[in-house]
């Protein structure tokens, strides 16, 4: 029989590269050899990560393989043929083959190297025997599919005499020379007919006991010994005596796996796992698109408003990082939204690299230079930049305002407020929604329905329901969804990501499941062959045509009967404040709003001209009067900048100073006959006037007013956060993917080359191949030739444990000295190795970090 390592080697360059692509954690850093790759594949963390990416269908098959591998009575001592799997899981052969293929792709299962396999596209032939990969059992637990230990294991615990008795009791044939008593007994008991026959004579209750344990969990509490003489106890004792139950520990009995399988009629699962395909509530695309466009516009507006607000007045960064809740509330009040929406807005702005810490002391959040580029874009492009950033972001805005484990309030923009799985969750949620309904009649799904699908897709790493809810809410607020369903632009967004490669913006999170999901109605929108529209272009198509006119009314309101054109929006934004948004826009002109427009340097004539340009029905008299009236009063009080001033009781003293050409450098301005302001600092003024023969003295600072124009703060965007030009992400994605493929292929090639070299060295040294089919001669004394690579060492230990071989273990003692022992590893788990030292007849448990090296014995 071949080993897992051989299987990996037999995958060849293409197969290894595909594996590295499917499980990216294996490739970084690049493993040194196929053996160390095998070790990494079997590493529990890596197996868990791979399991997190498989759907319930694949998981079912994995459980079945694990449960059926090596059971007694099967025609093959190890490995499971496909038809058996299909029968056990209740699925059809095709579905099962596809699931097996997928698991093979992830190296969660393996086949004999000579078994035909063509790397993914065609299903595995039904004659192939599939084996569970090492590490799978650790990850899936001791009772796969609720099945207990194998008969061989339970029987091996009985004393030899007891076995003989049992053989007689159950009428098993005498073992011949080729098999042991245990094996013969196990094979006999595993036969469904045996159980049937035995149970015919069983005491009452025995059947009930078995039925209770048959579908798991396989462990039951033993009836209390001694006082209970009831039928339950009798039944259990009878079952124990006939090998249909086994003693687990003094308090518990377990149902052996083969017996359970016989009771389950060979099934590991009651019913085939079916992918949920929720239908949701469909909404006309026009409504969905209109609503998503409206929300998109709103989201962009809120982000722009945040950039503007923070540009003028950057809020401080909390000492622990993030934005204080008071600042968040202030922003929310300013944007007229709830705190939660404000949190999303700043998080999206942060993810898009539009705002960042300015690095000053004390630090503040300020718009970045990229924000200026972003502000120059049109609405659809701005939106695309925001949603792309949101989609790729690990930030978890829904956590803002909740308490962390230590009871602290989670702040927006706090570096800790993130979830590494957020990007994957967002993408999958959008994919699930995109698959609901049709393109022309999209459907909205409840969070629970989406959650069901996600649970099917990755049962081992289903996201919490509240996160799904949060993602749906966020997608709605950002205008990706409209009325809870997928808009045209969102479809472009999802399709773009599906076509543009996996493009893991989140980093090392494994998300690459090749092939369609079996039986799922979520084949995705892959059928769309049309030219890929960018999300921005799609959104542009969703927006209603802009309206360039406003109806101004005598009650000082203005109404835009539609979506205002950018020019009109700009005029109204400046001169009025908004009362109601939606399909149309209602604004109100007030004294304050007109004043702030005047503050921006406009004159009343400018404002009225701008208004009448857009006003279909003219500017009503009250509004015109308001503008003129506010302008009349505007600027009657003046504020200026001066560095110093001169004042004198006697105007004659100051006469002539302003006009004096020699004092021009001082920048003197007469404010009143007795007051002159100067641009020069007091010291310079003092010196100049002394020189001129005046005898000035400086006053103390009270009363001097220095008015500084508000600065507009900008910082450089941090590396990696700079916003790419919209659309470039999608366009660059294929080439990025090619580059990754090239890299992985190079890693695979190096691997195989290193492997050959290693094997050559081993062959020259006369040691057996690493697959260790025979006894090695011991390692050369004391030089520590064993592998020091801990991952490889663990793999060696695991393989040795699985095959019952011995290894040389170099152990670092508490004093730092190294001892070498020849041991047979039993189990590698939870950072410890349990092994038997045959020579000293002792069992030992060694912490993994004390193992300095492992070599095949």
């Amino acid at each position: 029989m071949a080993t897992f390592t051989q299987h990996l080697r037999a995958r060849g360059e293409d197969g290894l590269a595909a594996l590295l692509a499917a499980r990216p954690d294996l490739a970084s850093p690049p493993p040194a050899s196929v053996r160390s790759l095998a070790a990494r594949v079997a590493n529990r963390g890596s197996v868990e990560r791979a399991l997190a990416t498989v759907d319930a269908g694949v998981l079912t098959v994995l459980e079945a393989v694990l449960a059926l591998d090596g059971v007694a009575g099967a025609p093959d001592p190890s490995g499971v043929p496909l038809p058996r799997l299909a029968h056990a899981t209740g699925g059809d052969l095709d579905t099962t083959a596809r699931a097996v293929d997928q698991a093979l792709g992830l190296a969660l299962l393996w086949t004999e190297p000579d078994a035909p396999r063509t790397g993914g596209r065609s299903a595995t032939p039904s004659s192939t025997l599939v084996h569970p990969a090492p590490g799978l059992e650790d990850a899936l637990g001791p009772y796969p599919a609720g099945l207990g230990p194998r008969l061989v294991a339970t029987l091996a615990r009985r004393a030899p005499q007891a076995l003989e008795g049992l053989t007689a009791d159950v009428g098993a044939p005498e073992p011949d020379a080729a098999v042991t008593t245990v094996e013969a007994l196990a094979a006999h008991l595993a036969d469904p007919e045996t159980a049937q026959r035995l149970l015919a004579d069983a005491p009452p209750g025995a059947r009930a006991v078995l039925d209770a344990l048959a579908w798991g969990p396989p462990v039951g509490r033993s009836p209390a010994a001694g006082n209970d003489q009831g039928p339950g106890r009798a039944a259990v004792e009878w079952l124990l005596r006939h090998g249909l139950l086994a003693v687990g520990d003094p308090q518990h009995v377990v149902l052996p796996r083969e017996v359970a399988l016989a009771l389950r009629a060979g099934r590991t699962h009651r019913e085939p796992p079916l992918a949920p395909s929720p239908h949701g509530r469909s909404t006309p695309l026009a409504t969905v698109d209109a609503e998503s466009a409206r929300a998109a516009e709103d989201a962009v507006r809120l982000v722009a408003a945040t950039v503007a607000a923070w540009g003028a007045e950057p809020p401080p960064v909390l000492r622990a990082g993030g934005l204080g809740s008071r600042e968040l509330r202030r922003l929310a009040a300013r944007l007229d939204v709830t705190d939660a929406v404000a949190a999303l807005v700043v998080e999206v702005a942060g993810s898009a690299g539009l705002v960042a810490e300015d690095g000053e002391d004390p630090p503040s959040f300020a718009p970045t230079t990229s924000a200026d580029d972003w502000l120059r874009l049109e609405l659809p492009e701005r939106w695309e930049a925001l949603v792309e950033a949101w989609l790729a972001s690990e930030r978890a805005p829904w956590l803002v305002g909740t308490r962390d484990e230590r009871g602290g309030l989670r702040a927006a923009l706090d570096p800790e407020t993130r979830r590494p799985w957020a990007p994957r969750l967002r993408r999958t949620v959008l994919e699930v929604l995109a698959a609901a309904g049709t393109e022309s009649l999209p459907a909205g799904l409840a969070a629970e329905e989406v959650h069901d699908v996600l649970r099917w897709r990755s049962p081992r790493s289903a996201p919490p329901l509240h996160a799904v809810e949060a993602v749906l809410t966020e997608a709605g607020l950002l205008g990706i969804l409209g009325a809870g369903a997928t808009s045209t632009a969102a479809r472009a967004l999802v399709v773009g990501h599906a076509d543009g490669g996996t493009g893991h913006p989140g980093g090392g999170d494994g998300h690459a499941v090749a092939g369609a999901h079996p039986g799922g109605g979520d084949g995705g929108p892959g059928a769309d062959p049309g030219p890929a529209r960018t999300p921005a272009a799609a959104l542009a198509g969703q927006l209603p045509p802009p309206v360039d006119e406003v109806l101004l009314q005598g009650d000082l309101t203005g109404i835009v009967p539609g979506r205002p054109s950018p020019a009109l929006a700009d005029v109204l934004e400046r001169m009025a404040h908004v009362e109601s948004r939606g399909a149309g826009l209602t604004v109100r002109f007030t004294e304050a709003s007109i004043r702030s427009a005047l503050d921006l340097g406009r004159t009343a004539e400018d404002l009225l001209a701008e208004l009448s340009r857009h006003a279909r029905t003219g500017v009503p008299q009250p509004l015109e009067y308001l503008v003129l009236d506010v302008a009349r009063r505007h600027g009657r009080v003046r504020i200026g900048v001066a560095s110093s001033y001169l004042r004198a009781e006697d105007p004659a003293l100051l006469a002539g100073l302003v006009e004096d050409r020699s004092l021009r450098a001082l920048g003197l301005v007469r404010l009143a006959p007795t007051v002159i302001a100067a641009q020069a600092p007091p010291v310079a003024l003092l010196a100049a006037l002394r020189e001129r023969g005046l005898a000035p003295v400086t006053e103390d600072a009270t009363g001097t007013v220095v008015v500084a124009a508000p600065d507009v703060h900008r910082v450089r965007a941090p590396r990696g956060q700079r916003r790419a030009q919209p659309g470039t992400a999608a366009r660059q994605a294929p080439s990025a993917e090619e580059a990754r493929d090239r890299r992985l292929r190079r890693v695979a090639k190096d691997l195989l080359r290193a492997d050959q070299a290693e094997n050559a060295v081993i062959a020259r040294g006369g040691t057996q191949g690493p697959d260790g089919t025979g006894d090695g001669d011991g390692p050369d004394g004391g030089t520590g030739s064993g592998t020091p690579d801990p991952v490889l060492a663990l793999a060696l230990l695991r393989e040795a444990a699985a095959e019952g071989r011995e290894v040389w273990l170099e152990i670092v003692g508490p004093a730092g000295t190294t001892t070498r022992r020849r041991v047979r590893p039993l189990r590698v788990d939870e950072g410890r190795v349990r092994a038997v030292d045959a020579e000293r007849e002792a069992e030992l448990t060694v912490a993994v970090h004390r193992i300095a090296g492992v070599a095949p014995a």
Partner: protein
Amino acid sequence: MTDGPLIVQSDKTLLLEIDHEAAAACRRAIAPFAELERAPEHVHTYRLTPLGLWNARAAGHDAEQVVAVLLEYSRYPVPHSLLVDVAETMARYGRLQLLSHPVHGLVLHALDRAVLEEVLRSRRTAGLLGTRLDDDDVVVHPSERGHLKQVLLKLGWPVEDLAGYVDGEAHPIELDETGWSLRPYQRQAVESFWHGGSGVVVLPCGAGKTLVGAGAMAQSQTTTLILVTNTVSARQWRDELLRRTSLTEDEIGEYSGARKEIRPVTIATYQVLTTRRKGVYTHLELLDARDWGLILYDEVHLLPAPIFRMTADLQARRRLGLTATLVREDGREDEVFSLIGPKRFDAPWKDIEAQGYIAPADCVEVRLTLPDGDRLAYATAEPEDKYRLAASAAGKNRVVEQLVARHPDDQVLVIGQYLDQLELLADHLDAPLITGATTVRERERLFAAFRTGEVTRLVVSKVANFSVDLPEAAVAIQVSGSFGSRQEEAQRLGRIMRPKADGRTAHFYAVVSRDTVDQEFAAHRQRFLAEQGYAYRIIDAEDLVAG
């Protein structure tokens, strides 16, 4: 996307472009369920509120109709959440019903058991409900009928009151339609009210609300209690009823500070009903003095809180509220809804003006620049004195004189807040003055003289805000008001809006001191009128002489 006249905003406002050809049809279609918020010249703003939607349910409209109307007239796709919200809100009305049970009397009957459970568990209903008869019915203490309705509305499950009304003591009342007849909208208002049982009719000032009341009485044919704002108004009701109905003087009683008559038709003032002596309302017995078949509330938007509480006990009697606006400065519209009843009829001012039943009005704000001395005094005044200082600026007297001079042939009312200012003005104009201190007899004499044209200029304080019928007044000049009260402005405008014999335009002037709180309050007051479509022009006092 249709080219409809309506834009539905996500914040539940509806924008109706009135120059659109389908605007009139759309207005008719949305009027039953949407509250008109603003009706300026180009785009009217309506709002969907729970009360409005429940009003519609009470009038027999259902959510499907509402949704269909929105979809039919909307120019852009209607926000999905809004449609869902409409359906959900409307579905809440009438899940609970108040029924009259042949054995147990008044019972609360649930069409939705879960709602009943929720309501029963609420602490607010404690003490209002009696024993539970079965899964769906609970006895209601008859005295708590109104209170319960209020509470259920607050809980968001407005109850449909099907328990009916006591017939009341019958009393023959006929409209005497010689030389006049009820206008179509008045007749419609009476029918809508009678069909609905109880409720509120909203008509603009000058549209003849008294006649709607008279019509309702003629329909009811029972003894009637009429609650009005003040004594003058009570007298006008009496005069109008004598003139328009078969009622004689002996059948109409006045229950006021001055007189305490209880007759088949009794007119009482809010003030006398809310008079307390040692914490006890001394005139409550009036409510039970007769077996009233109909209770009329004039100026519902001014109804004081104690009257609400008393009304809670009158739920078995038919109630009709009359008002020019449902806007209450105190925001208690929901109590009007639950205690008096849903809105049964309304017609916007401009519609009635267009039909020629009220005079068109020209509203002008005259801005007066204060002289420097006054400005300095104003700038340094204590905040609480600022309004008085600005409102009673001496310069206003000259402006009023100029305005009066512009209308030599019209009947002119000068209305103000501050007595010393009014006295000064009365002096200047050589016109009689009516204030709260003027006796009722003197007031009536002066009003009568004004009506006949004997007196053409009248200076009045806020006593003339309400229910003073001065049909020939064509010009009103407001020199000061109660701060920013919106409905006061509407009432004052209403004084001059009776249609004139020769179809003249009415003129309403507000004289305002520039750059002061006076101007701010004026802006606030005017908002209501501007929203009703009466836009103000603003002119400078300096231009007045020239103009």
